[in-house]
């Protein structure tokens, strides 16, 4: 295991904790997107580029987008 592997694992651990500690849903959707990107980098570093790509599009793009859209809808209804 090289330095890069350890570094990425630490980043993912910090990122995951950050997602849990963020309490505001809007900010959380941004943090979870960033965390999705970190996970994508992790998969890439561990030589699973195909999984990394899927993780990027789903975890860093699609999931935050769904959260944002749902938040926008909930907010529009409340007004």
């Amino acid at each position, binding site marked *: *295991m090289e330095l890069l592997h350890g570094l990425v694992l630490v980043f993912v651990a910090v990122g995951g904790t950050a997602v849990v500690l963020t309490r505001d849903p809007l900010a959380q959707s941004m943090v979870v997107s960033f965390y999705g990107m970190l996970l994508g980098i992790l998969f890439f570093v561990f030589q699973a580029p*195909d*999984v*990394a*790509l899927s993780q990027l*599009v789903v975890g860093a793009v699609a999931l935050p987008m769904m959260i944002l859209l*749902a938040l926008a*809808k909930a907010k*529009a*209804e409340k007004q």
Partner: protein
Amino acid sequence: MSFNSRRNLFFLGMLGFGVLYLWGLKGLPDFGRYEGVYGITLNKVAVAQTHATNLVAAVTFDYRGFDTLGEEFILFAAVVGVAILLRAQRDEAATADEEAEESKDESRSAPHTSDAVRVLGLALIGPTVLFGLYVVAHGHLTPGGGLSGGVVLATAALLVYLTGEYVALRRVSPESLTELAESVGAGGYAAVGFLGLLAGQAFLTNVLPLGTTGQLNSSGTILLINLAVSVEVAGGFSLILAEFLEQTLLVRERKHG
């Protein structure tokens, strides 16, 4: 339950988890050592058998293609479910919908998009579509494929919404088209499976000519299934996007207009 007892329960759970975790870690093979029988076997035979250089695609769309078909329909059902949930509410406001239709442009209450976002978005739409198509078309050669490429393509629709207006999104991805794409993509996967039956072999057998390894036009049904999946994913994600935006805008208009 008081804060202290909850905290104690948490630490108790953590202790149990920690013990099991360390126990599990001890049984793992060393870092970088791989002992999976199937993986080693496939690494030896898959390129010769399927002519696909991306073994992940060979496994998901050929060796365990039937399994992926099930996953495909999970996504299909999920998209249909979201669309149905959002549409039921739209019908309730059918009259508001008509009024909103007339005053769509002015009554958009969201703040105007900044020029920076518009310029950057406009510049990104073309490359995004091209990159999506690239990822889809090379799914059997390099990492990528229908799922990732399809989402990238759907992102282009999101960019259109961000740079232009909702109306522009409607024009590039009309509901009838996204619905059609989603269904045709999902059905197309199954249809490719029937090719195997027509050839007198098992469902989803790779019966098409395999072509030259490394060429774009190779790997038989893997390429076809990749294309079908990309059409379904791009259609499905655009559909959800449009449904959500429709809902949000509709509610806004009902309140303001």
